[in-house]
């Protein structure tokens, strides 16, 4: 898994600073938005669901109240104690006394029609005899009493009866509410009933829950009493389950929120069917709004991210490019600085660094050139015509004296001397070879000057023999010792060359027991060597200054020469090579 992510990350160059910035900004920007959107959506959807449930419950409760108020009023009318006119009508009708019953009939018609006027939605009010004769607000007629009684079912009080919806005598869709009436003056009881228009139930349930949402009324058995689709009236409801518990139900592939209440007055359930689609339409709106807002914010974040990452990474990319070019030896690069932020400071530092490198490069070139010049001068100094001619004259004298062995040695020593001086043009040579070079020189000079002096070469640390040092370091010093120390003295001369290593420094001490140097002169020489004193005559102390300058160029200021002398006793030149400063 990690490898897979890594592959994808590599695929989209996640390692680039710009990509990292984009991803970081996106995560920082997007996560809060998504979190906020998710939370607010959940909170809002919960609130809407609660509101719909409360609204549905409130609606069905209100319908229940309205329905019970209406039915109670009808029941109050039907619950007559004793009515003189009805009693008289019943008695006279049972006796077929039409002459006297007609005025009571008229009165009953009048009363019943007044009741209809006062109770909108009442289609008919009637008194029905046990034989099916009926007087109602529409006159007198006969009904099938057995069928009518069969259709009645009692409410919880067992005193009021209801029918299922049906088409009444006048082709009207009604529900009948009935109660028994027991006249005092007649043996036979009658039924007083009221036909309630189904439109009353429609009006009671005429609350707008939505286009698909609706209300229905069902009896205790779940048989539908009112439904907006009239064909459903009388059918057993699918959702009846020992009542109508509140829940989510499915109808024709759609979800509905069922909310119900039970009316004890009527024994009916008032049921709200709120379409989940319509309820969630508002949620969908919020969902879409959240999505659109998230997309807009996402686009804004992406644009902002691109801008920010670009503005941040572009100078860095430029810096990277220029650094790369600089690393490829293009030191002409320069960053155009704009602004004063950290990246601008970095650019300034980069430019400063490039300038410094350029200066150092130029300095190095100058120093190398100077070093070459010093080397050449050192070589020139060695190939003095006088030295060569005398040496060659000595060799000729030896050949004339047929001292071939010594002549051979001289030629050999001279050849080695020059060969080691040139060292195939190399700048650095092994100390071993430098020592050999000095030995050759001393051999030649000893022969030339009649062995007036001895020399000792003492290398304390043999390991330094394999170290490299600039060539022609020792010979000029030894030459000075011979010509300025030993030859002017009237005693047997001795030159000691010591080589040692101490604390990463290689020291060579060239000591002679010659005439020495006056202290003020020693001081002058050392000042010149330290650069504290300038001289106009470039030939003055040429050998010392040449070696000293070369060492300082190659090994830094700590390296160089130091002269110590006791007049008429000895002179010691110390060569210090600080290896830590070597190039």
């Amino acid at each position: 898994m990690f490898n897979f992510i890594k592959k994808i990350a590599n695929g989209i160059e996640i390692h680039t600073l710009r990509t990292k910035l984009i991803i970081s900004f996106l995560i920082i920007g997007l996560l809060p938005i998504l979190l906020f959107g998710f939370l607010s959506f959940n909170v809002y959807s919960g609130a809407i669901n609660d509101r719909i449930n409360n609204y549905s419950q409130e609606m069905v409760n209100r319908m229940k109240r309205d329905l019970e108020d209406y039915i109670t009023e009808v029941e109050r009318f039907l619950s007559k104690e004793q009515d003189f006119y009805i009693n008289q009508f019943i008695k006279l009708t049972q006796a077929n006394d039409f002459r006297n019953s007609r005025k009571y009939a008229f009165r009953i018609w009048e009363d019943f029609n007044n009741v209809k006027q006062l109770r909108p939605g009442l289609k008919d009010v009637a008194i029905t005899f046990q034989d099916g004769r009926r007087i109602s607000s529409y006159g007198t007629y006969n009904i099938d009493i057995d069928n009518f009684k069969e259709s009645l079912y009692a409410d919880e009080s067992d005193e009021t009866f209801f029918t299922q919806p049906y088409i009444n005598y006048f082709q009207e869709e009604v529900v009948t509410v009935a109660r028994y009436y027991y006249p005092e003056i007649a043996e036979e009881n009658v039924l007083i009933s009221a036909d309630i228009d189904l439109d009353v139930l429609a009006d009671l349930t005429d609350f707008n829950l939505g286009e698909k949402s609706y209300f229905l009324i069902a009896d205790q058995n779940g048989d539908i009493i009112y439904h907006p689709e009239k064909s459903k009236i009388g059918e057993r409801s699918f959702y009846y389950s020992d009542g109508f518990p509140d829940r989510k139900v499915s109808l024709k592939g759609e979800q509905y929120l069922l909310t119900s209440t039970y009316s004890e007055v009527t024994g009916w359930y008032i049921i709200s069917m709120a379409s989940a689609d319509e309820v969630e339409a508002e949620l969908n709106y919020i969902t879409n709004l959240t999505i659109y807002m998230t997309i807009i914010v996402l686009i804004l974040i992406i644009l902002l991210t691109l801008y920010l990452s670009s503005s941040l990474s572009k100078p860095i990319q430029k810096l990277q490019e220029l650094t790369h070019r600089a690393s490829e030896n293009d030191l002409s690069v320069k960053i155009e600085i704009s602004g004063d932020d950290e990246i601008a400071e970095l650019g300034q530092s980069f430019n400063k660094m490039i300038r410094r490198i350029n200066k150092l490069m130029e300095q190095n070139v100058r120093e190398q050139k100077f070093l070459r010049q010093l080397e050449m001068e050192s070589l020139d100094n060695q190939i003095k015509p006088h030295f060569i001619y005398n040496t060659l004259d000595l060799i000729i004298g030896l050949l004339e004296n047929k001292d071939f062995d010594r002549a051979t040695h001289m030629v050999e020593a001279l050849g080695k001397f020059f060969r080691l001086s040139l060292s195939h043009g190399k700048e650095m040579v092994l100390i071993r070879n430098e020592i050999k070079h000095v030995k050759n020189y001393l051999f030649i000079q000893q022969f030339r000057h009649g062995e007036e002096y001895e020399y000792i070469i003492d290398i304390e640390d043999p390991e330094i023999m394999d170290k490299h040092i600039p060539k022609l370091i020792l010979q000029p010093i030894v030459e000075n010792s011979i010509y300025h120390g030993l030859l002017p003295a009237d005693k047997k001369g001795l030159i000691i060359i010591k080589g040692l290593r101490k604390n990463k420094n290689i020291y060579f001490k060239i000591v002679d027991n010659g005439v020495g140097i006056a202290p003020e002169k020693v001081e002058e020489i050392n000042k010149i060597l330290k650069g504290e004193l300038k001289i106009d005559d470039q030939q003055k102390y040429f050998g010392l200054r040449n070696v000293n300058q070369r060492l300082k160029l190659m090994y830094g200021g700590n390296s160089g020469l130091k002269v110590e002398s006791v007049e008429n006793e000895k002179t010691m030149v110390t060569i210090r090579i600080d290896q830590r400063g070597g190039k």
Partner: protein
Amino acid sequence: MFNLYSCKNNANKILLFVVLFMIIMCFSADAGAEISSKNTADSDKMTIAFVPRSLENPIFLDAFEHSQKKAVDLGINLEWLGSFSFDSEKQIKIIDSLIERKVDGMIISVNDTPKYDRIINRAMEAGIAVATFDADAPNSNRIFNIGIDNYEAGKVTAEGLLKVLDQKNIDYNDPDQELRTMIMTGVKGALNLEKRINAFLDTVADTNIVIEDIVENQDNVNLAVELLEQYVQKNPDIDIIFFVGGWPFYVPAEALPNFRNWAQNGGVAVGIDIFYDALVLQDRGLIHYLVGQDMATMGSKGLSTLYNYIKYGVKPPEYIKTGLEISNQENLDRLLRIHQPWRVK
């Protein structure tokens, strides 16, 4: 062995079973749909429905009473159905429900308008025998009409008026002194009422009686009282009022103060329809001459005639006339004893 006879026998049994099952299913489906669609407990009885113009008009109570008596005698399920106040739409709806329930016959009091003709014809086409009583629809296919000779009633009323004027020494021939008259009728289009008005106008044509206004009360008793009171208050100088029907006579004299004042100041009122309340008003001097209809005969004879037509195919004459009753000062006391008050005290 394959038995062709037994196979055929089995097929017949299955067919019989299927037919019986279908018949049972049809009946059971009907019973569930309409609780009261079956007419009576005794469905063998003939059912004939009377449809008066309204229940609130007590003039029909005589017909109601006597039709019930006759129904008992003939063993008929009698229905008496109507809207409380006259409403042609509701009346047609009631007739429509009777057609739906397939009653055997109906006797109705209607307006002479095409929509009534259509519903009557539809009932006839459905096999329901239809007759009219009181008000007729002669352009329909109804079998017969039973009622008074409305032209005669109007004529007799006009003649009675002239007699009253004579008794009051009011000259109805003086061309220089017009007797301004208001006619109160029910609704235009009621043929019986139109005939009465025409007869009245024909009879007084050669007099100085002139018709000032014709007021329609929409067959509504309460509206009739209200219109009458308003009219005489606005037109106290009106000389004569002819009531084509007895709509405003159902209230006591105290309920007609303007009309009473007008009568006491010499106004002459005549009208058609005799019943107890109208006679009381006549007795108190508010009305001077009444011509009555024999509504009882309309109820009883109308029912028996239609019964005979349905049961025995006895074709009645198109018009069956019932007699007129006249109420004047000479027979008023006797009539007050005969006619019963319709209102429950």
